[in-house]
């Protein structure tokens, strides 16, 4: 079954048309990458999928249901989890609190809150789960640090933690390794692979500029340019596509 299906999505910011009739179908369990040069509309497509912005025409379906009009929180409850291109964490809170609030939100929405009504503290289970998650992200030693004090890479990982705490069915990552050092990149790639590996059933939608990361993770790739989909297929298909070479990979090849 299609996890997410976009049908001829149009999106404009004022007079600027950013998406031109984009179609896409993302299947359950696959890792789907959206690539394209700066300003191609990748983030905008993300925003339309997650409900951060609406679209003027076209529809967004999630798990077979039309969610075009659903606000972001509804889509999140239905199983979408996303990160932002520039990591957004709750800066005044500690790393652990960041994850705890996300776990609490999930438990509340699922009607599984297990803390007694009078208790001000998060439940034991929520705190344990947060610690486990932070350990998986190698943030356990920074659990008590304020998110504002974390390094860029740590913030990105913490944001991933907030998102995973919601136990999403589809994990949507907007440039998960942007601004990271090469070694951090390898770490995050490994991390995403371990989370979304076969058997996890997790669907991943990601944008990324780093081709190493893309080729290491993606099952299928969609290439965008100037708000349009210009190609879609497996890594090999994309590598072989002359149009893609021209507008995108070609440019990179020249740089190299």
């Amino acid at each position: 079954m299609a996890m997410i299906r976009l049908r001829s999505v149009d999106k404009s910011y004022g007079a600027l048309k950013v998406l031109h009739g984009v179609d896409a179908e993302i299947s359950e369990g696959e890792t789907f990458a959206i690539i394209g040069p700066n300003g191609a509309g990748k983030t905008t497509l993300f925003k339309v999928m997650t409900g951060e912005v609406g679209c003027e025409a076209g529809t967004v379906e999630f798990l077979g249901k039309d969610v075009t009009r659903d606000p972001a929180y509804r889509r999140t409850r239905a199983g979408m989890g996303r990160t932002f291109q520039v990591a957004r964490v709750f800066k005044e809170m500690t790393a652990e609190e960041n994850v705890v609030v996300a776990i609490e939100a999930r438990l509340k929405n699922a009607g599984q809150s297990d803390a007694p009504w009078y208790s001000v503290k998060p439940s034991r289970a929520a705190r344990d789960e947060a610690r486990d998650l932070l350990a998986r992200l190698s943030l356990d030693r920074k659990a008590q640090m304020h998110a504002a004090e974390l390094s860029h890479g740590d913030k990105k990982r913490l944001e991933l933690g907030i998102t995973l705490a919601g136990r999403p069915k589809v994990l949507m990552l907007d440039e998960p390794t942007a601004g990271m050092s090469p070694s951090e990149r390898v770490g995050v790639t490994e991390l995403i692979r371990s989370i979304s590996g076969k058997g996890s059933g997790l669907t991943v939608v990601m944008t990324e500029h780093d081709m190493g990361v893309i080729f290491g993770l993606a099952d299928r790739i969609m290439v965008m340019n100037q708000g349009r989909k210009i190609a879609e297929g497996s890594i090999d298909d994309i590598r072989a596509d002359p149009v893609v070479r021209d507008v995108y990979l070609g440019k990179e090849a020249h740089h190299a």
Partner: protein
Amino acid sequence: MNRTLSGLLLIFAGAALVLLPLWANSGLVFLAGTTMVVGVFALSWNLLFGYAGLASFGSGGLFSIGAYTMAVMLRGGFEGQFLLLIALSTLAGGAVALAIGIVALRRSTGIFLAILTLALAELLRITLAKIHWVGAEDGIPNIVRPNFSIGLATVDLGRGNHYYWFLCIACALLVALSWWIAHGRFGRTLRTIRLDIERAAFMGVDTHRYRLVAFTISGAIAACAGALFAPWAQIVTPDIGNMMRSTQPILFTLLGGASSFWGPMIGAFLFSAIEFSTRTLVGIQEIITGSILLGVVLLFPTGVAGAWNALIARLTARPRRDEATSAALQPVKE
């Protein structure tokens, strides 16, 4: 360390307030009682500002609704049911806040909400000044301090300092309630909304609904404070909810610190202390008060509570930091 010290300070302050009538004159006792009530009022405002990230400039209107509801019902001869009257006044404030929130919060936050609430509070004040049934501009004078019965025991709140002590208990309960709301899961979720509303929405939080509930609770507590105040002042006039009243919580919060739960309450008492000690300096009192406020805002951007926490943190020199000493304390996202 920090916690223990602050806790001790709290107990000490509470005891000093309860024992105040034993030695202070009635003027000072009246000031203390008033400060407690407006302190609770300021806490209710900061529940919105410091936690949900919403700034209301019309909270005086809700205070007024509580005070008038109480005054009218006491005048109507229902003084035997004081607890019920408090509950009804609180509900009235909550209902009005809910109605305003439903209409206003969906589109207007930030400056629009500020202007809208300010306008509504002024509208209420002007309307009250025209309605003869509530005494128009003269308001409702001679409000009685009723009997208060709980179980078999009945206390005559009109005698001696009984109403003052009643205020102590009522305010303590309201502070405890606010503390519980602010520190529990609800308050934590509100904080995420203030810090980054979109990030919160992408955790599956219905941010609009949370803000609406916070707006309602804040309005209910503000009205409850107003209801407690009416028999204390023994008169209500339309000016009980004027712009000065709406500004009070903002000033107290600036002075005490928005990032700390106790900030607005500390600010209220500091403000009263400054006003009391400068009361004989007719003419320059406002200048002094204003200068001190300016000084605090410039020197301690996190308010007195923030400065206090930072001081203790430095004295005890433990690396772990408290919420109120963090650097990023702008109460509302730019």
